């Protein structure tokens, strides 16, 4: 046997192996690099403007210093709450139907459509809600903004919920069936309850996903530089405010936009930590 040739081949294999490892490590670095850059940049630019005023005051007139984004923070929280109130139950119940009742073919169709919906550009939701809510109501409103966010949440919640429901062992369903418990109660009180942590995780992730959406709010909530007095008025939201401030010509507002971005990223970050915390205790 030609040992020399074997060694050559072995050496070349080693080189190839090292090359591939290096390529994989480099790719992994490139994945986290943008995240690091964004966090670093936003933190540097925004940290100085995140102060008590930012959380308690409404925007100051252009040119005058101070002011904050309290109205946008509250507007965002209100719209996220309403959107979750509409989107989460529909998404969860839809997933329950699909996993516990739906036939194979119908289930596949629904799943496919939900995936398509997840890929719909978010501005399309804004335009849709503009047509079906804003135009008939003759004005922008928190309701319209919430609805467009809810439309985005439904397929997100549905798909994640379906996946955690599939993890519930069949033994529990059978045990409950064998006790003569009606099917709807099994679905809600045995299956969904067993998967509750996973369902909440999915809802939190969906909230985190839509919290930063600007496009669906442009045509629906519109934004407001002051406190909105009702849900039927144009309403400020953090991503909208960031957008409006960032394209403005004022330096003060640019600084506030950075601060808003930092707060928004912080909020999403906290949600993700909450998800981690929940997922850690999740049962298999």
């Amino acid at each position: 046997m030609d040992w020399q040739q074997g060694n050559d081949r072995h050496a070349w294999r080693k080189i190839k192996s090292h090359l591939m490892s290096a390529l994989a490590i480099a790719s992994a670095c490139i994945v986290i690099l943008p995240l690091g850059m964004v966090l670093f940049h936003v933190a540097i630019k925004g940290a100085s403007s995140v102060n008590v005023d930012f959380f308690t005051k409404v925007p100051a007139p252009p040119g005058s210093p101070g002011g904050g984004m309290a109205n946008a923070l509250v507007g965002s929280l209100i719209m996220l709450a309403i959107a979750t109130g509409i989107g989460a139950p529909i998404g969860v119940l839809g997933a329950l139907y699909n996993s516990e009742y739906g036939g194979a073919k119908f289930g596949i169709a629904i799943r496919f459509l939900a995936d398509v919906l997840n890929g719909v550009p978010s501005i399309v939701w804004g335009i849709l809600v503009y047509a079906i809510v804003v135009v008939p109501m003759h004005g922008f409103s928190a309701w319209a903004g919430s609805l467009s966010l809810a439309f985005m949440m439904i397929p997100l919640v549905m798909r994640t919920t379906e996946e955690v429901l599939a993890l519930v062992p069949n033994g529990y369903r059978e045990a409950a069936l064998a006790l003569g418990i009606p099917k709807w109660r099994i679905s809600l009180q045995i299956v969904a309850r067993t998967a509750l942590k996973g369902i909440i995780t999915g809802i939190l992730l969906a909230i985190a996903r839509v919290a930063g959406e600007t496009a669906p709010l442009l045509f629906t909530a519109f934004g407001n530089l002051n406190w909105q007095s009702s849900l039927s008025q144009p309403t400020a939201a953090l991503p909208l405010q960031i957008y409006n401030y960032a394209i403005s010509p004022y330096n003060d507002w640019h600084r506030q936009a950075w601060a808003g971005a930092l707060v928004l990223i912080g909020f999403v970050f906290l949600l993700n930590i909450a998800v981690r915390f929940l997922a850690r205790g999740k049962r298999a």
Partner: protein
Amino acid sequence: MCPPDVNSIESARPTGQAPGARTVPSALSMTPQPTAKPEVAIAIDKFSLWYGKNQALHEVTLGINARSTTAIIGPSGCGKSTLLRAVNRMHEVNPGTRMEGKIELFGRDLYAPEVDPTVVRRRVGMVFQKSNPFPTMSIRDNVLVGLKLNGITDKVLLSQRLEECLKLAALWDEVKDHLKRPGTSLSGGQQQRLCIARAIAMRPEVLLMDEPCSALDPIATAKIEELIQQLSSQFTIVIVTHSMQQAARVSDFTAFMYLGKLVEADTTDKIFSNPANKQTEAYITGRFG
């Protein structure tokens, strides 16, 4: 038995025999004898079942006596679990199943069009191979879940039933001080006894057991077997088992199945000492299966 009765949760227990009085093992109804026949709880008549195109049961005819234990034995895939699940209509959970023939519970056709399968399952309880207490529920809630989710809220009744069933399942002394702990905190054998308590909390007339000890160690198995013997004075028990020793220890009657057919059914003594059929003899002496 009248229709309203079959649809009520608290169905009347079949009368005629004091609890505790074991039926004298005479014979299964399929081999009638001139002596006084014991009451037949489950009458399976020419019952066939298909999974899609695959026929799993071939015209099985078998009578199961009330307040006694009947073991169904046979090699893997012989249809014994399928037959068991047909008695509480659990096989209907799988799509594409089809059946022919009849199964009667105390004279009432379980497959009659007006009979609701959930009601059948309240009267025919089931214990599974793998213990499956609900992980989100306490020991207490696991026992009472069937009652609670069927709309029973009377607190006195619930706590009475809790104690009664845990005592019947020989678990009360071990868990009475921590009923609020999760059901899954118990050991494997305790979990299986908890599942038995959960099943009998519905006060079923029949208790189906699908290899209830196959995941348990010998000590836990012995406890469950003892429990089965105690419970058979009050319930009609049908147990599917791979262990012939277990069948011999716990059952009054034994049915041997092979390739989806009922080969022989008789008293356990007869089956294990003097089986009529060659296949039965070959199986119980360990020559195949």
